[in-house]
């Protein structure tokens, strides 16, 4: 067992951290993610209203422009929508939803995909052909189509969209982990563990798993951004998050309806925030991918 102190000193002395500190894009990505995590956790307690509690809304406040335009209201920095919702508050609640869904889906995919990949790569045979057959079929369809299919069947809802996106996102992990597991299982440490007589479960999750985690972490970082975008897209199309719940995609859709009346702020700001969040995830994900890819060194 490695004690915490040596782990921390190992991280501090590592090449990865050295490269991270010298890469302004990676630092920017990490900072953006930190700001968004902070917003998702504490933001809803800091904004002036709960935009999804109808009792707190006043229709007299509807369609106020952002603060630098004429006819604005100092209470609403980025203006209000058709129901008098403060855009800042609505965006903060939307960010919380995006981040929650992004992390939930990624964690579910990571656990399911990695487990199936480990088993598939270690056991081989019929089980392997079955799991990989499933993976290959699913990979030949765009994930948006698969998510749409699930949502068409089950209807709109927060848990349903998590399910739909998880259903379409586990395959990448399974395929990568299976490949790595197959090359790991012939190595001496696995042979040794077998000879000692450890049960398969222990060999898989205690010995092989730590050695396949590197690509898994890279895929996960890059996946969070994709998941967040997919959720927003499905919600925008009206088959994702129900209108009673906060979502950046739905806000853009509401703004789209009133776009031609010159009310541009309802759709522009939520989309901008969404883009910034995904940029942060992709910046960090790109850095991790280059860092862990031995072929680029």
């Amino acid at each position, binding site marked *: 067992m490695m004690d915490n102190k040596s782990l921390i000193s190992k991280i501090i002395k590592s090449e990865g951290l050295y490269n991270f500190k010298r890469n302004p894009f990676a630092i920017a990505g990490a900072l953006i993610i930190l700001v968004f995590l902070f917003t998702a956790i504490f933001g809803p307690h800091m904004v002036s209203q709960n935009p999804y509690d109808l009792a707190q809304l006043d229709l007299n406040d509807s369609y106020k422009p952002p603060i630098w335009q004429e006819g604005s209201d100092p209470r609403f920095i980025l203006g209000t929508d058709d129901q008098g919702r403060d855009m800042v508050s609505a965006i903060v609640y939307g960010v919380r939803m995006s981040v929650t869904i992004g992390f939930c889906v990624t964690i579910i995919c990571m656990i399911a995909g990695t487990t199936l990949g480990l088993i598939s790569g270690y056991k081989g045979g019929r089980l392997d052909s079955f799991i990989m057959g499933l993976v290959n079929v699913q990979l030949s369809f*765009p994930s948006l*189509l698969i998510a749409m299919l699930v949502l068409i069947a089950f209807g709109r809802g927060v848990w349903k969209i998590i399910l739909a996106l998880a259903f379409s996102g586990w395959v990448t992990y399974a395929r990568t982990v299976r490949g790595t597991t197959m090359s790991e299982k012939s190595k001496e440490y696995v042979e040794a563990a077998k000879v000692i007589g450890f049960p398969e479960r222990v060999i898989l999750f205690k010995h092989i798993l730590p050695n396949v985690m590197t690509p898994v972490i890279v895929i996960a970082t890059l996946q969070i951004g994709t998941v967040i975008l997919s959720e927003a897209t499905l919600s925008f199309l009206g088959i994702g998050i129900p209108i009673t719940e906060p979502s950046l995609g739905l806000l853009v859709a509401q703004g789209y309806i009133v776009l031609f009346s010159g009310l541009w702020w309802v759709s522009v700001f939520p989309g901008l925030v969404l883009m910034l969040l995904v940029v942060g995830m992709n910046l960090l994900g790109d850095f991790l991918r280059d860092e862990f890819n031995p072929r680029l060194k």
Partner: protein
Amino acid sequence: MLFYVIKRFIQMIIVIAIVATIVFIFVNMLGDPAVLLLPPEASPEELAKARAAMGLDSSPWEQYKLFVVNVIHGDLGNSFVFREPAMKLIFERMPATLEIVVLAMFIAALIAIPLGVYVGAHPNTFASRSILSLSLLCISMPTFWFGIVLILVFSVQLGWLPSSGRGDVVIVWGMRLSFLTWDGIKHLILPAITLAVQQLATQLRLTRAGMMEVLRQDYIKFAKAKGVSPHDVLYGHALKNALIPVITVYGLEFGGLVVFATITETIFAWPGMGKLLIDSINISDRPVIIAYLMLASMLFVVINFIVDILYTVVDPRIDLR
């Protein structure tokens, strides 16, 4: 080779059968279309009559058997709303979708490949870094939001381009086409750009990665040592091999864009098959949803089949098993 083609063909049929079954089961989990289509004050007798008219009064197993027979005959039932064959509705709208998809792929390739070659060959210049950062922005951008921003700038503010519909169309072999009239082209520009942006960024990064990978190889070093001009090394020796991964994903990306066009069509009120799907979901028009899902899945399965076969033709090193 022939054995491989036959084997892949049989696999393709199996996948289509599985997809058909999944689509059938999933779509049957939707609410009762009779309740959704008839006015709320309809009596139970009227509801029963409506269900019988739509073939929904028999057991799920009977319905499934009928569905399989009909699929083999290419008949996916009549739309509950338009009272016309679902397949016909989708085929009518397909040219509109293909039009923006093809144009988007064309725009993307035209810009992405030269830029990707440049960025891959000169990775450390300021221009390369800017292009790469810009491509990251494009990948991170929600497509629907980008379309809305385009409408805001070019339709609402500047008034240069229309924001919805197809404009004037010309009928060629029964297909309604927009790109043959000036008004139609003006309607095409914004949807095609919206659809192209993410594709452009993905292709650029793929070309760049391929280029960087190829340029490290020995035969390039050898060509340089031999005294081949840098320009010929880049475009003669390197590009050919760098493009193999780009071309292989091209087919798959085409299918992806057909599905992604759903978003673009919704924003620009473009009367393609994607918009038809979203409209049909909103009114629970089951046959149309099934027809769309079946057709889209078949498109992917067939594209995959063709790509696999072509792949083995292009690259003889691939083992056929």
